[in-house]
């Protein structure tokens, strides 16, 4: 006999002991329970877009949309929760193209414009993750759907099931091993920075808000991104191609009775200075609105939307996201009628 009953039982006991102690350890560290914002969660949300109405918009964009628009607040005021399809660190254009090409989408779309992502060239890094998810969606199999619902059940009970922060890959990424000059492995955020809820809402944790060291870590991430991934704002023909592609998608949605609104959420500090320098409003935001003949909401134009400070220059704290959403709804409402 190769493997005795005792061998198997000892193995099972060790694995069980590890899982229990691992879970208890992270609970003792006050880690907040969150959900994996993976392909399946995005696909499950993507399925909901056909339920979109003027009061239940689809949100596309990057992390600012996920942090800054508080879905529960929206639901409390309007009665329906928006459908959050934004993706961290990505341009919304692949999703916009996807929704434009979907003949059954006739809803309302709020497009978060973070210029350095929105105006990145086709097929560049900020588009890759969005493209991957868009391409995956039609192939989201019944098996993956079943796995997603089981996973959801486990994630709602186990703190350690957090691929972004508590997986082997996440631990390896955070090892303090210096890199060769010029090498950049992508942004690595402290785990307290973001917790994702089942509806894909992102929130900063209380620990993050209370600790300026953690906030400075994220600020440093933005500085590193600027240093290692130099922005080359699209200009000339490249910019025109982006504007034309955006207009095509907007027109497709409008032709079916849908609505599109562009939204610029707050940022400040060094991030805001860099955005202003690289993407002057008149050359990008204003041109986007005129080229696509679309209404836009720029936070600086509204006193009630420009009163916020971002703890790490780019996203709103949860409490500010609630106020921002409360103030945003009256601005959005007339545009969706």
């Amino acid at each position: 006999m190769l493997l005795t009953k005792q061998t198997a039982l000892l193995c099972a006991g060790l694995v069980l002991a590890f899982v229990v102690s691992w879970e208890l350890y992270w609970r003792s560290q006050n880690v907040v329970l969150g959900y994996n914002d993976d392909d399946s969660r995005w696909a499950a949300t993507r399925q909901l877009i056909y339920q979109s109405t003027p009061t239940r918009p689809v949100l596309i964009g990057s992390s600012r949309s996920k942090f800054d628009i508080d879905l529960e607040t929206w639901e409390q005021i309007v009665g329906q929760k928006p459908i959050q399809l934004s993706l961290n660190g990505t341009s919304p254009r692949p999703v916009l193209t996807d929704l434009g090409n979907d003949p059954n989408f006739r809803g309302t779309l709020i497009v978060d414009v973070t210029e350095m992502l929105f105006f990145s060239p086709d097929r560049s890094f900020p588009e890759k993750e969005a493209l991957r998810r868009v391409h995956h969606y039609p192939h989201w199999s019944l098996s993956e759907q079943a796995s997603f619902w089981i996973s959801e059940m486990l994630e709602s009970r186990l703190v350690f099931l957090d691929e972004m922060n508590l997986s082997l890959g996440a631990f390896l990424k955070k090892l303090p091993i210096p890199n060769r000059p010029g090498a950049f492995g992508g942004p690595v955020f402290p785990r307290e920075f973001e917790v994702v809820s089942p509806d894909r809402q992102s929130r900063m944790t209380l620990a993050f808000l209370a600790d300026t060291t953690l906030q400075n870590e994220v600020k440093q991430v933005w500085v590193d991104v600027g240093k290692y991934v130099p922005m080359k704002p699209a200009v000339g023909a490249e910019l025109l191609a982006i504007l034309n592609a955006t207009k095509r998608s907007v027109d497709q949605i409008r032709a079916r009775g849908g609505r599109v609104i562009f939204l610029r959420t707050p940022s400040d500090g060094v991030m805001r200075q860099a955005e202003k320098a690289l993407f002057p409003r008149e050359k990008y935001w204003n041109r986007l609105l005129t080229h696509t003949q679309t209404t836009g909401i720029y936070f600086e134009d509204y006193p009630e939307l420009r009163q916020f400070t971002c703890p790490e220059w780019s996203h709103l704290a949860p409490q500010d996201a609630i106020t921002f959403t409360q103030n945003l709804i009256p601005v959005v409402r007339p545009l969706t009628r």
Partner: protein
Amino acid sequence: MVFNSFTFVIFFAVMLALHNAPLPWKVKKINLLLGSYLFYALWNPPFILLLWLSTVVDFYMARLIADEHRPARRKALLAVSLVLNLGMLSYFKYGGFLLENFTVLLDSLGIAFQAAKPDIILPVGISFYTFVTLSYTLDVYRRKFAPEPSLLNFALFVTYFPHLVAGPIVRPEDLIPQFKTPHRATADQLRWGLLLLSLGLFMKVTIADGLLADTADLIFSLPFPVQPLDAWTGVLAFSGQIFCDFAGYSTCAIGVSLCLGFVLPDNFRYPYAAIGFRDFWRRWHITLSTWLRDYLYIPLGGNRHGAFRTYINLMITMLLGGLWHGASWNFVVWGGLHGLFLCVERLIEQAGLRRAEAGEWAESKPLVSRASVVGLPGNQAVRRFGLALLTLFLVNITWVFFRAPTFDGAMLLMLCMFGAIPDAPVMLTTTAILTVGLVTVGLITCHWLLRDSSLVQLARRLPGWVLSLAWAALLILVILTQKGSGSFIYFQF
């Protein structure tokens, strides 16, 4: 459904319970068959029709072939089966590729032709189950055995879920006899099966997806050159990823099947310790290489018609073997390179044998491995290890063409690997380089130490508590990796 998913955990638990329930053998086989259809249908339900078509046509065609004694009619019946199976494979797998190349050909002749882009979805596992059913019909045609009288046994042989979508490519004699008599795993088989399933999941989830995939994906997706260290790290990452992904799937399949009491053939035998390319193909995707040998290389004439024809047959076999992996010229180049290396190895071997026969090496005693006859100085173990590293180096060169999205991309990466592009940027973090380096060294060490042994022999040598610790470590690392249910690379083939 993939093995590394929660859905599979529940599915497998139900299948195990049903298979061990006090039910008649025929009912258990029907359960397995229905379970296998469910396993397949949870990807894309309509494609199950193709599976049924292939099963029914080959079952009845083989019976007609066996009953027919007129050679011409036998050939015609075989042709019907081949046309159906290879026709389906060609349409779904090569339709777009053929049309694209036809368009390019017409363009080069100055004929403007604009073909509509075909929107063809490749049914998962079609290359695998096509080869499974083909081998059955061909063997009945050759009168190797009588056709299987039971449609249930035959359908289960084709559809049996552990091997259905990515092999091992089973032969009728591997599996059909096992379905004829009641089979249930012994307690030892069940434990060993679970251990193999754990090992396969560890290879796939932790090593392939968790430690290597990101680095390989990054380097192979870059449209610009990188430093040699980054390029080599990317290639080594893919080399480890493709092995752990595919061998991981096979190990899971063998383990799952063993839990049900059925033995599937080995598909990998420590290929990165191969000495020479002939040895490599005896260790890598064994069920494909033996399939190609038995149904392509030998029918082409094998080595029975002189040296020149042997080399031609080798090249044809490897080129088609490359094309089997996917509809792209890169796969043809990959197969061509393997064919070329096999030919060169054979040339060296033949020359060495001739010189040995002439007594030139009487004193130096050439190193004779399975694959090579090479006279090199030094300690024999060191020489063998050196040759294994050389083989692995060349295998890695071929992986560049296998993985790169385009031929130009492959050539760019090759130039980077050999330092032909100065001042290219650095891309990878030190952690990524160290991770790939450690995994590569670990893989080579494991393969080298186990190349003439097996896991069973290793398990026999270890005390029970060490096995428990090792097994638990595998599972804990799988749990820690937390990678979602990513597809296996070979599903796309």
